[in-house]
């Protein structure tokens, strides 16, 4: 339905035109966005070119690109980016496989389907910090349930620097696979049934049907899930912060937090935040372009 702005409407007759009402609704939102999003964004861009430290009363001195240059030459920062990239790949891939697989299992007539779906959604309704603390206990080598169930003895999930990142990713997969499952389920239920019937008449195999019908039709919505999850995984902070202090799990958000709020290197941390922002935008753009291609097919 298309709504047109009619100056002779009832509202107009009371003294407020439709345009005024529209502005009344839109302007506060725009003002809110400008004050709390756009202004700090531009302000912090300015700070990123200074040596400003919020913990002191010293004025901010312009240092040009020094912060950016130093950050991009800092091996620790590159290590943080490498850790983040590894985490994003493992976590998002795991969520897609588990989430889509679960959606495939649920996309059929089974008893208590609604209840099972609701129960499977529970993890993503929990707080990240609570999940982190809860899984920290599960992973404990002395009294954790995971080692007991899998009969792994004193296996160190979080204590082993090589394993810790995977342990954090497994927790993230447990928590956010239901999100991918939910979107995939929506996509799967939208696939026209007659396509499967036609494939069955043509005696198409299960794999052929999956790769030629199911996956191509669900791909756009699955890509949206991947975009959301990639952006979120790239920004992961609380889960990794609560679960482990291993350097091998120090993702870029944790480094940024420490730089900004523990070390009070305000200018430098603003520069790092911009580097992260540019990276997230670049990755999202690549995904969106790919999504458009998938949709065009």
């Amino acid at each position, binding site marked *: 339905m298309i709504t047109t702005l009619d100056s002779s409407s009832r509202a107009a007759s009371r003294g407020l035109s439709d345009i005024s009402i529209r502005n009344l609704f839109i302007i506060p939102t725009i003002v809110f966005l400008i004050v709390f999003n756009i202004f700090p964004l531009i302000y912090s861009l300015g700070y990123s070119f200074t040596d400003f*430290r*919020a*913990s*002191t*009363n010293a004025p901010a001195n312009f240092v040009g690109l020094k912060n950016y240059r130093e950050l991009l030459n800092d091996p*620790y920062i590159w290590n943080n980016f490498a850790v983040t990239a590894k985490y994003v790949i493992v976590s998002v891939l795991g969520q897609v496989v588990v989430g889509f697989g679960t959606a495939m299992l649920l996309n059929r007539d089974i008893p208590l389907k609604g209840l099972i779906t609701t129960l499977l959604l529970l993890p993503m309704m929990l707080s990240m910090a609570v999940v982190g603390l809860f899984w920290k206990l599960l*992973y*404990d*080598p*002395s009294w954790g349930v995971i080692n007991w169930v899998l009969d792994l003895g*004193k296996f*160190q*999930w*979080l*204590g082993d*620097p090589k394993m810790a990142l995977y342990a954090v990713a497994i927790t993230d997969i447990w928590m956010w696979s239901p999100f991918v499952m939910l979107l995939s389920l929506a996509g799967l239920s939208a696939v026209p049934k007659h396509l499967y019937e036609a494939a069955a008449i043509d005696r198409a195999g299960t794999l052929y049907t999956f790769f030629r019908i199911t996956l191509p039709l669900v791909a756009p919505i699955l890509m949206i899930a991947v975009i959301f999850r990639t952006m979120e995984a790239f920004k992961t902070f609380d889960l990794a*912060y609560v679960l*482990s*202090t*291993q*350097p091998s799990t120090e993702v870029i958000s944790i480094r940024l937090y*420490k730089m900004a*709020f*523990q*070390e*009070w*290197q305000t200018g430098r941390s603003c520069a790092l935040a911009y580097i992260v922002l540019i990276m997230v935008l670049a990755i999202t753009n690549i995904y969106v372009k790919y999504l458009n291609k998938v949709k065009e097919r």
Partner: protein
Amino acid sequence: MRKLVTSVLAGIGLTLACGTSVYAQEKSLTIFWAEWDPANYLQELGNEYEKETGVKITVETTPWSDFQTKAFTEFNAKGSAYDLVVGDSQWLGAASEGGHYVDLTDFVKENKVLDKMAPATVKFYSEYPGNSGKYWSIPAEGDAVGWSYRKDWFEDPKEMSAFKAKYGYDLAVPKTFKELTDIAEFFNRPDQNRYGIAIYTQNQYDGLAMGFENALFSYGADLGDFSTYKVDGIINSDKAIAAAENYRKLFGFTPPGWTNAFFVENNQAITESLAAISMNYFAFFPSLLNESTNPHAKNTGFFANPAGPDGDQFAALGGQGISVVSYSNNKEEAIKFLQWFIKDDTQKKWAALGGYTCNKAVLESAEFQNATPYNKAFYDTMFKVKDFWAVPEYAELLQQLNQRVYPYIVNGDGTAKEMLDALAADWDGTFKKYGRGQ
């Protein structure tokens, strides 16, 4: 309609008028501290102050993990929410140079704080820069890193004879780091789910640094020269290398997964019968004597940080001083509270409530030293403590220490010399960046 509007406005006016008059009559002070037992004791002490003066004291707390961030966020905003803050000793540089703390030099001299408090506590909790004679806080909660141990394990005749047979001397409270290491090795029995020792390893703030410093200082090593900011040849000296090697050796006798351990985990090591010896701040020892929180309370003993190979004996300083916030609207009242707080009688009450006084006379009294099983060890420790850098960029130095020390101690990466050489280079770079020691 007009009546309704008039009534509502009158009601609002009356409420505001009443609120203002009540507010004007009531004097109050807000003290900001971390969320732990001593903050509750301070609230109780504050209630005493209210009874005497009518000034209401509110101790506002936040979890330790947010403490520094929340305090400095308020400082940076020049907020007047807090009149006093019981801040970490490392904050002195940042808070004084940032203009967040009121200069208490005259107060310290006029009220003879230097004579009343243990010298090390004034030096580390109050003075900045070091040896400058400028003071920014009053020692409030003295604390240092000490040790608790399982007395019943130590006094078991079978264990005692087995220990003597293996090491050639009696099993007793360790007086040196060598003895500490031997005992940790002796009790380390993974097959019995029993381990030798619990040490600090958490690298999110200063946990690992404090633990490592306990070894470093007793080995006769130092972090650097606090007046010239020279670090090369000091933090990576032979003594420092030996201390790091010993701390790493001790880590080998900790329970599995002891890679993110600080005060909570280290007390758990005793309460859950996981380890024979456990490192912790003295401020966390009261709960180890409480049978409702520690089933082994009767069998838990305490001792001061042992000496190193050359007889040096120091401990890492914890605790905090109390400072007046520059942006407070009640600075005069805050100063009056401090004058009351440093009185000998108040300090006695503070100690009786459970606070760790820094008052020399109270610390030296037999009454204090015999009050708990750990007070004697606390007294012994408070006269031989050393602290981390207190410069404004201390958090960067701490981060660099965590980045270098943690992989070596916990993950076994590289050698102690490589690690400390790299740390010396990092710190040197940071001091140069901020124009120190040039």
